[in-house]
């Protein structure tokens, strides 16, 4: 009764895609009926489009400015959102700054989602000593408030985009691992997993076909709820001088360098923060909408 790995994988893929159709259809149907989530989703998509298409949006150079054009107010012709303390166009810097802020905010959650899910599903499915080791290490990381952990790792590694990505990823692996472990352990005890085991499927196939399909969505919803925190943290690291280095535009860093300008033009100084705030608000509301849309079964 041996089946080659490829056949097994083919079967697995077919099963997962074939089975998820009904579920995701239902989730999107519910999501479409949620006006707040839809509005936030649209805003996030627009923002993503803007930062991805930034080089083609006919914006001014975000890095070089003119000293005689410093701190022009919002509405200045040619500088719709004014200029910053070095005379650089704010609109352009906000769009380009969004690139790094979103990248630094979203990528760590994505990485942590991949790593944390792998660790947590492994710990939850295999159990025993592996579970104990993984979960006790996770406990240790829970002894740090997330921002302290981010600052500790970033502070030790030094400033830089990669270091910031690394430290934020490490910050979010433990909570995602913990959630993944607990959902996996509860799915593991369900009888359909037993039924799959006695059908002769190997552990990898059982996990791929029967466990992952049922644990990924709760883990994913949890991960989306972390994106807003991650973005605030990423900008916060840059604000402390630990993330992106000048003159590269990034919202947190802009907020920091513009602090001196609050006495001259408070509106300009507040703009990068407004962007962080609005984006994080949208991410939170979208995640809430997703959470209630995915609760298909209750």
């Amino acid at each position: 009764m041996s089946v080659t790995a490829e056949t097994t994988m083919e079967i697995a893929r077919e099963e997962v895609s074939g089975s998820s159709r009904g579920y995701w259809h239902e989730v999107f149907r519910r999501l479409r009926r949620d006006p707040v989530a839809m509005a936030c989703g649209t805003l996030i998509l627009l923002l993503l489009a803007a930062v991805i298409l930034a080089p083609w949006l006919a914006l001014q150079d975000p890095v070089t400015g003119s000293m005689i054009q410093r701190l022009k107010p919002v509405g200045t012709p040619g500088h719709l959102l004014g200029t910053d303390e070095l005379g650089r166009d704010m609109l352009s810097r906000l769009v380009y700054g969004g690139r790094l802020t979103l990248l630094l905010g979203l990528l760590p959650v994505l990485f942590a989602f991949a790593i944390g899910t792998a660790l947590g599903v492994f710990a939850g499915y295999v159990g025993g000593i592996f579970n104990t080791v993984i979960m006790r290490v996770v406990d240790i990381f829970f002894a740090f408030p997330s921002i302290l952990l981010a600052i500790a790792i970033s502070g030790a590694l030094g400033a830089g985009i990669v270091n910031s990505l690394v430290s934020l990823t490490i910050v979010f692996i433990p909570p995602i691992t913990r959630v993944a472990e607990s959902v996996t352990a509860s799915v593991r005890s369900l009888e359909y997993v037993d039924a799959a085991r006695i059908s002769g499927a190997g552990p990898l196939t059982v996990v791929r076909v029967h466990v992952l399909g049922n644990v990924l969505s709760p883990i994913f919803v949890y991960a989306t709820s972390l994106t807003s925190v991650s973005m605030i943290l990423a900008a916060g690291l840059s604000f402390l001088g630990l993330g992106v280095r000048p003159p590269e535009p990034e919202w947190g860093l802009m907020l920091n360098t513009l602090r001196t300008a609050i006495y001259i033009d408070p509106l300009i100084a507040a703009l990068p923060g407004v962007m962080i705030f609005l984006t994080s608000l949208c991410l939170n509301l979208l995640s809430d909408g997703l959470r209630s849309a995915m609760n298909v079964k209750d």
Partner: protein
Amino acid sequence: MTDQQGTDLNASPDRGGPAQPLVIARALKRYFPIRKGLFGRGKGAVQAVDDVSFTVRKGETLGIVGESGCGKSTTARLLVGLADIDSGDLIFDGDKLGATLTHRELWAGVQMVFQDSYASLNPRMTIEDTIAFGPKMRGVAAKQAHAAARDLLARVGLAPERFAGRYPHELSGGQRQRVNIARALAMRPRLIILDEAVSALDKSVEAQVLNLLADLKAEFGLTYVFISHDLNVVRFISDRIMVMYLGEVVEIGPVESLWKKRAHPYTAALFAAMPSMDPDNRTEVPPLAGDPPNPINPPSGCRFHTRCRFAEEVCATMKPAARPVDGEAAHMAACHVLDPRSGHTMAGAPGLETADA
């Protein structure tokens, strides 16, 4: 690559002949360690199944009864290889699990239907995919597996054109249990363990599913191990009945023989608790009071002595061996009263049921 690619799944062949029992369970033990203390060091263990021996003959239905927590379900999980055997042997058609038989080979011959019809179906799979999954894992081509799945759906009474694409939450409990039966059948097993498989169903649905099970048994030449706490159901479907108490077998025998004479006081009490349809057939034995003792520290001697009406000193000190009831070798019970040399004052008495009346 297997030569079965593209063919239907065949039932594993009968190897030992009709005389060889399909299953021999020999002194099976399963303890669950209690994790307590700081470093998870064991502090005792739940003796879920302790020294349980029995056979399942080819083509019969063995019913297992007992209160919840008596080890019925653990026994089922041991039989199907879902729980690890701490000690003892499981011999399937002459092959010992772990020696000449792998788990994968065991699963080719034994399948299980679980109590919770909802939890035993993957909520993200259509029922056709669920039924076809196992055969595909064993090398049956997808097309054949799905065709067979639809045939089986029809066989268990669910029109494939209406049900094949549905998800578990779109079915009723009885329909889901039919799917679970079809899923087990799809593996072409010789033995199906039914662990409280009809207990959660409405009475009318339960009867339909029981009839279906009886039909399928004849059609596919199956052997059943049927676990339930409902004696009426067990009586209806079983050829033999095994009674368990606190992880041990206290009595085993053919249905008629056991119905005529409940040799073990626990069996008698269990039957007494059963609601009778016939007012003339009232039992005089008082039903059991209280909960079973803690299986972490089971009582010494006969485990039932703490709740037994006939308990004497010997019951607390010596474990009774299984003895034939009324000289009938097929009907065995483990009670000192049955052993004339045990020292029990009632030893050798004509029988408990009558002794009381």
